[in-house]
């Protein structure tokens, strides 16, 4: 699909158009953070570009709390909500979606709830136009601009965007709203590339400054450091809040929870945290990971040992959310550095 140009005002018209079929979300900026907000009308705080929002994209595909069974009825509990059109999605979150896809779609068993969201939702992603200190996507092999899994990707150039379709849905949307798009010229395309190079360089500098190892250096590091004292050391300040899991775009674990009403069976699933003591405890009381440092090690083992061995990818996107979210200042970059440097 050839690339088109869309002005900011036309993009807003496109969002209105999308509002007929979707619940549209865009990132907005509050202070130094970005959050997703339901789009209603043009507003000054909307930012399409910049860096990833506070919340991980997974919230749109497997909500923090969701009903998964209603009585003994075989059907999938039905929701009246329109599907989501999520605008301004970042490349790191798309990598997160690939991990989630592996768990819920490309596996021995399929999850009908996730699959429904995945097939109905629309993703309008956007290149990062800057980086923040915690960004290290490139170390995990993700470039700061989306290259796959989007319906339309936007690259900000001047007062508008270069729009590239990445799916049939994207093609159709651009065709249907062709009046909102114009042709691109060499000028905008080269500006797009220049910007991509500039942001890539910024992230490279981040990685260098923080001495984050590239993923090529992470092979086998968990096995090698399994008995290391570093886990106790790193976990010293952890308060077991689970924030690292909640904000992580790849963490997928959940808890099945039944409504406390004996007359009416209703089952929900809620995000769960492997940092919490009872996560792996069996009913009889045995707990394979009673100590906090064992659970911290387990979190890294899942991301940097289990996933590469079973899904051929690290379950880390380099988004840096866990660094910002952790009240104990546990820094994944530092842990990875220690892992890679120990021999």
């Amino acid at each position: 699909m050839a690339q088109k140009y869309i002005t900011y005002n036309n993009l807003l018209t496109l969002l209105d158009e999308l509002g007929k079929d979707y619940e549209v979300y865009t990132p907005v900026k509050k202070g130094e953070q970005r959050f997703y907000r339901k789009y209603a009308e043009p507003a000054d705080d909307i930012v399409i570009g910049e860096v990833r929002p506070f919340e991980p994209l997974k919230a749109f595909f497997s909500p923090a709390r969701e009903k998964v069974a209603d009585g003994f009825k075989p059907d999938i509990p039905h929701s009246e909500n329109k599907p989501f059109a999520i605008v301004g999605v970042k490349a790191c979150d798309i990598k997160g979606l690939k991990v989630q896809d592996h768990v819920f779609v490309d596996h021995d068993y399929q999850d009908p709830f996730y699959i429904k969201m995945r097939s109905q939702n629309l993703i309008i992603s956007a290149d990062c136009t800057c980086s923040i200190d915690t960004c290290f996507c490139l170390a995990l092999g993700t470039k700061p601009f989306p290259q796959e899994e989007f319906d339309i990707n936007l690259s900000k150039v001047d007062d508008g965007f270069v729009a590239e379709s990445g799916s049939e849905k994207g093609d159709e949307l651009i065709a249907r709203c062709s009046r909102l798009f114009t042709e691109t010229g060499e000028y905008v395309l080269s500006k797009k590339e220049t910007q991509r190079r500039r942001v890539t360089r910024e992230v490279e500098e981040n990685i260098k400054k923080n001495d984050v190892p590239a993923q090529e250096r992470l092979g086998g590091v968990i096995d090698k450091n399994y008995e290391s004292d570093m886990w106790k050391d790193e976990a010293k300040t952890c308060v077991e809040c689970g924030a690292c899991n909640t904000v992580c775009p790849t963490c997928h674990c959940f808890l099945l929870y039944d409504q406390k009403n004996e007359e009416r069976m209703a089952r929900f699933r809620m995000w769960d945290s492997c940092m919490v003591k009872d996560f792996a405890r069996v009913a009889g009381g045995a707990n394979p990971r009673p100590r906090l440092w064992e659970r911290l090690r387990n979190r890294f083992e899942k991301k940097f040992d289990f996933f590469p061995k079973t899904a051929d990818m690290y379950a880390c996107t380099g988004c840096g959310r866990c660094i910002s979210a952790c009240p104990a200042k546990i820094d994944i970059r530092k842990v990875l550095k220690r892992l890679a440097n120990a021999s």
Partner: protein
Amino acid sequence: MHHDIENPYRPIETEVIEVITETPNIKTLRLRPKERISFVAGQFIELTVPGVGEAPFTPSSRPAEKDIMEVTIMKVGKVTERIHQLNKGDIVGLRGPLGKGYPIDSFKGKEILVVGGGCGLAPLRSLMYELFDRITDFKRVYYRAGCKTAKDFLYKEEIGGWAKRPDLDLRLTVDEGGSGWQENVGVVTTIMDGIQMDYASGIAVVCGPPIAMKFATKKLLELGFKDENIYLSMEKNMSCGIGKCGHCRIGTYYACKDGPVFTYAQIKNFPNIWD
């Protein structure tokens, strides 16, 4: 396009048709699911008490019996406590069967040593029924079981009946003897010696509390069983049962879908498998 995927989280409505008290803290429920469920020994199910929650159990009944399933349940937590209050006629929910059971076809023509302890005798009963149903397929079946005391022994009378079978070599033990116990006293490994079988080609099936499995496995290895011929039932905190919720990971596997039955060869290199 994907709308024909069944909801993997909804339980099937199931009637409790009988409650059997086995020991002071163990009961067996006879269950009749409203939809037919067929399982192989070693697979597990999730049992829902409406309004309370769900917990994993391994059926203890004859897999060939297709309309009824029995589950033997020890009172250990919130859900099992509520299960122990269930009566005939109550409605519960059932999901499954889940996971992989024993690959019995691959045991054909071989000698099989079944080693069980405590609550592990429940899933093993289901296996024994399946072995009995096709006993001539196997060269010889050996059964070695132990419990803490005679009064904790599951299915005492039934197992007593098996002792008379000419096609089964059976020995029982209790950790603490007394009150008329006639057989061996000691942990289960004390009755694993002196079996006249070819260990190197034999199949071993072990099910019981982790500590018992650990020592039984050690013993089997000393006797000369091969890693890939030792089948273990790994108890983990199973919830979703389909490899999604993340609770039951063991190394590079999920116990719920890749197990709960694993060979020792599959898991021996993972750290802390017995914890």
